[in-house]
């Protein structure tokens, strides 16, 4: 399995854990804000959980651009390098 797929699976688990959205609804390209009702407070919880898990810092200016699991995984791949 490609590395990114593993990463996406981890991100789905993390987002589901914070938002209580079932993993099966977290398709890679679904806009979790527009379509799954994630709000700004849930978003910062996701970012905080993400930073803690991967020991990285997400630049604040990047946060509004992250709207899907795939985008989070792409950012993770970039930051973890």
């Amino acid at each position: 399995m490609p590395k990114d797929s593993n990463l996406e699976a981890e991100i789905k688990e993390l987002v589901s854990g914070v938002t209580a959205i079932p993993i099966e609804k977290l398709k890679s390209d679904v806009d979790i804000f527009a379509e799954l009702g994630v709000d700004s407070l849930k978003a910062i919880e996701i970012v905080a959980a993400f930073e803690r898990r991967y020991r990285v810092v997400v630049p604040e200016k990047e946060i509004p651009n992250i709207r899907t699991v795939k985008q989070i995984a792409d950012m993770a791949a970039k930051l973890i390098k």
Partner: protein
Amino acid sequence: MKFDLEKIKSILPQREPFLFVDEVIEAEGNSRVVAVKNITGKEDFFKGHFPGNPIMPGVLIVEAMAQASIILYYLCKPEIAQNHPNYYLGKTNAEFIAPVFPGDRLILEANRIKIIDNAGVVETTAKVGDKIVAKATLIFGIKPNAKK
């Protein structure tokens, strides 16, 4: 860095009897704040919580920790905080470990997990002496004050 009550009132929108920070005794950069609330026993809530058996309500300990968190937000985002935005608490994950009584000096520690312009995640503890009496992760939002 230390803040006196006047400085605290320039940051926090709360006022007596709902102001739960008396002084800031430590402010490390923009990652940590240690504040103090002296519980005198004269606070109104002790009349009812509970008659003859005064104990500080846990929700007010959370409020005190939230107010310390606003001061931490101010250190991170002074340019936004100085315009007196509205702060709203979104979520708390709190644990209450020991009661707080009149005469206690409540020490409020707020440690930044993540703070951005419109939201924050802060880990807080409340201590009396060295003993942790409560701890909470607070998630809060910030919105511009429409009246300004």
